[in-house]
């Protein structure tokens, strides 16, 4: 298998699907001539030309809506949001149009749209540029929410997202674009809605995605030193959620920790905790612990930002708590 960076895996996924289907095109700010704000679309303008790799004005609601309309008549737009923070400007288009058109039209129209871009904190980008908004997106029926954590998952899931006939919100991580990982040479897809056990373990189940998956794996290494074997589960898709994978793991370990970069209140982590408590009620030996980003706007100062984000020590502490150690 080739070892490539996350951004490269995403780039491959888009290129392969665009070669496969002429109705797939990429649109967004700086995706073309500039080669992508984070270089995810590097080389794509040269490869596919201005017709299919389109630079937009800074007008998130406008081009998101344009993408939705185009999808209604058979195109398969990939709309890049320079970051998901800016997509808030397009929430009306995503929540009231993309998510509802199929339902309102009683199935006459579908919206095969992918909206993708980086999510969450990078380094010292401060409050308006550091948000993890998957909880809001996942709250809305009609939307699919995918948030991969490895190059291989990113490629396989982005290809599935582009082929899916539903509006898919695809969340990446600025900090992970450089992460390298093995990616199969041959073509492959990863099914939407199927989670993955990233590390097997017997003593506790840790559920985490995107950047936090890596924090959790590092924590698992730490815990190993003390003989604690953590099972680390990556849902990969947030909506629909692979509930069985999580519940079955908890039924085995009897303990669960959820690690999430987002704010805690009414978050995806809250949803998972609620389900684990209800569906593994008789198996839990301790209440589910949730490790979240601090419930504050992200501060600029690096020392504070570090304190605001989930970390290996915080995860280790949470695991020990559920183990009463």
């Amino acid at each position, binding site marked *: 298998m080739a070892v490539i960076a996350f951004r490269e895996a995403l780039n491959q996924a888009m290129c392969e699907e665009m070669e496969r289907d002429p*109705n797939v*095109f990429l649109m967004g700010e700086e995706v073309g001539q500039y080669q992508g704000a984070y270089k995810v679309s590097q080389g794509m303008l040269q490869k596919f030309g201005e*017709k299919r790799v389109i630079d*937009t*004005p800074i*007008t998130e*609601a*406008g*081009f*998101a*809506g*344009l*993408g*939705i*309309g*185009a*999808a*209604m*008549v*058979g*195109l398969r737009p990939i709309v890049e949001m320079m970051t998901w923070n800016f997509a808030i400007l397009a929430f*009306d*288009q995503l929540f*009231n*149009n993309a998510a509802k*058109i*199929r*339902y*309102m*039209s*009683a*199935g*006459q*129209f*579908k919206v095969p749209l992918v909206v993708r871009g980086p999510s969450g904190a990078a380094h010292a980008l401060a409050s308006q540029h550091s948000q993890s908004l998957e909880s809001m997106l996942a709250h809305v*029926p*009609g939307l*699919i929410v995918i948030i991969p954590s490895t190059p291989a998952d990113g490629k396989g899931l982005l290809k599935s997202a582009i082929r*899916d*006939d*539903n509006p898919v919100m695809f969340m990446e991580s600025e900090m992970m674009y450089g992460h390298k990982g093995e990616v199969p040479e041959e073509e492959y897809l990863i099914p939407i809605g199927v989670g993955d056990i990233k590390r097997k373990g017997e003593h506790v189940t840790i559920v985490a995605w995107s950047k936090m998956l890596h924090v959790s794996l590092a924590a698992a290494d730490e815990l190993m030193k003390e003989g604690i074997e953590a099972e680390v589960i990556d849902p990969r898709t947030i909506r629909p959620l692979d509930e069985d994978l999580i519940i079955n793991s908890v039924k085995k370990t009897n303990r669960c920790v959820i690690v999430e970069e987002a704010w805690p209140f009414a978050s995806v982590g809250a949803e998972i905790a609620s389900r684990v408590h209800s569906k593994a009620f008789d198996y839990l030996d301790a209440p589910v612990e949730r490790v979240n980003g601090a419930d504050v706007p992200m501060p600029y100062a690096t020392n504070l930002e570090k304190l605001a984000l989930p970390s290996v020590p915080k995860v280790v502490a949470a695991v020990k708590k559920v183990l009463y150690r």
Partner: protein
Amino acid sequence: MTTAALKKDTKGTKALRWKEIGLSNAKVIDLYRQMLLIRRFEERSAQEYGKSKIGGFCHLYIGQEAVGVGAIAALREDDYIFSAYRDHGHAIARGMDPKGIMAELFGKFTGCSKGVGGSMHMFDLAKGFMGGYGIVGGHVPLASGTAFASKYLGKDSVTVCFFGEAAANQGVFHETLNLAALWKLPVVFICENNRFGMGTAVERSTAVWDIYQKASAYDMTRQWVDGMDVLEMYRVVKAAVDRAREKNEPTMLEARTYRFRGHSMSDPIHGHYRTKEEVEEQKKSDPLLTFGRELLEANVLSQSVIDEMELEIKKIVDGSVEFAEHSPEPPADVLFENVYV
């Protein structure tokens, strides 16, 4: 600019105007008939709403028929139409079955959106009726999307988007016009300036009362049209649609019209925001009245033909209510259908 300036100016004698724009007598009679069908259909909808057969919001098109009928008559079958929540008239003008529209209003499974869409969300894929939408201005960018797709796919289908003058104050309208002008998309924006956004007169909601002039910020071809004159609507929209089809040139049109009823069935026809006198005055330019008179004077229509027409239309409207009444509600499992493909 004064309020008066917002009213239509006269266009002199109209004798056989339609010949000059290539419309046959049969065609203009059909335009009249479509307006009459919409009028009677909506009057009946109002009654059924009163009987609580129709629920939710119900925004009548009465008074504005010439806009939709004239504009849609200028379209081809493979063109796309987007509407807002005041969409019944557009749906009928597009030739959607009144039965399916009334059934939709009744929330029945035989409705054009199977009863899940309702008054504000009529859809008809086969007719290129891309839907009615409830968020003011929210559907405008969608129209640039279908226009983009036509260009991308090398099809010459044109998109027409209807919205109110108050919707032109929404940011996404501005964003969309910029995209349409910048990328030269085959779309015609038709702003139905009926003088009010709910209870707010246009003069109180926007700094420039010539709504069509807002397109100057995008250097887009623009003009206003007498929205009470179905032939003018046809003529101007036809020209705009042709420009879009042949040259991918977008156009912004302002159709000056008037809403004879309240904003929705639950709103007053007049009161705090406009006087009874103003409404009565405006009714003098009722498109059915004026166009009917024109056709009678030209001996293209006779009163007896109109009477027959009324009878035929009454049958259609009665039939649609009949159909809606006897149609089944959507079965329970429909609740969970079509959330995802």
